[in-house]
């Protein structure tokens, strides 16, 4: 069989297709990050003033939430490598819960902005802020769906130390969501 992705593609964790997907997603976000930076250069004062209205504490908490949930996912992968299905499902479940925390905090932020009458058309800063964080938000949701599927299978003992590509695929996607936020947070909330 030539379908064993691991042997074929330099031992990348998880399914090879997810890596193509990750690279494509990172490219899309990368272009948006750079576009934000150059759009800001056109109107620094406006961007700085608008940035002041963001809640940096929420942003920092969310960074830590994602980093921690990424760490939990690492623990889950390590657990399944030792054939500990229950531990694996537990760690993934904790990671999923942190994803839910992220989503909740983000919703509070969105609610704040929308109730202040801010929309995509308010100004360039808010357009980028809302668009970038919303796209990222959708990725967190998608990651949670993927995690949920893997959790269900892991609980049924569907993975083992020999066959856990599914866990690694979900893990890789989840880490990407983290990776993107690691750039997004300083860019949108901190640097001025």
């Amino acid at each position: 069989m030539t379908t064993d992705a691991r042997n074929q593609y330099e031992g990348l964790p998880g399914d090879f297709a997810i890596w193509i997907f990750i690279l494509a997603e990172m490219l899309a976000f990368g272009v948006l990050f750079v576009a934000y930076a150059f759009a800001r250069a056109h109107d620094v004062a406006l961007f700085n003033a608008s940035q002041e209205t963001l809640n940096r504490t929420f942003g920092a908490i969310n960074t830590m939430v994602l980093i921690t949930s990424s760490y939990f996912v690492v623990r889950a992968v390590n657990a399944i490598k030792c054939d500990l299905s229950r531990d694996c499902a537990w760690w993934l479940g904790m990671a999923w819960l942190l994803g839910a925390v992220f989503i909740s905090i983000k919703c509070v932020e969105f609610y704040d902005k929308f109730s202040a009458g801010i929309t995509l058309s308010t100004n360039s800063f808010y357009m980028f802020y809302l668009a970038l964080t919303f796209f990222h938000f959708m990725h967190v949701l998608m990651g949670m769906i993927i995690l949920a599927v893997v959790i269900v299978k892991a609980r049924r003992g569907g993975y083992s130390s020999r066959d856990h590509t599914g866990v690694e695929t979900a893990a890789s996607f989840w880490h990407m969501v983290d990776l993107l936020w690691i750039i997004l947070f300083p860019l949108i909330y901190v640097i001025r």
Partner: protein
Amino acid sequence: MTRNRFFTFIWIVLVALTLVTYAMGEAGIIGSGAMLTVLLIALVKGQMVANYFMGLWHVAPGWRLLILGYFLIVGGLIALAYGLN
């Protein structure tokens, strides 16, 4: 397990670096030095997540370089755009 202890260590470093970035924002430290520092912190964090959490450390070096290159290019262009004003 030593492996888990290593990842816990990485996690603590990531949290610490996040706090540094946050503190710089709260303290209102601005200027190109601060901007570059924050971008550099993001680069280091990105490398830690990619190499250790994602496990690219065990993969052909091309993949690690790809992620490193991504952070350098994206971060570099951001720095360039911020340097424009």
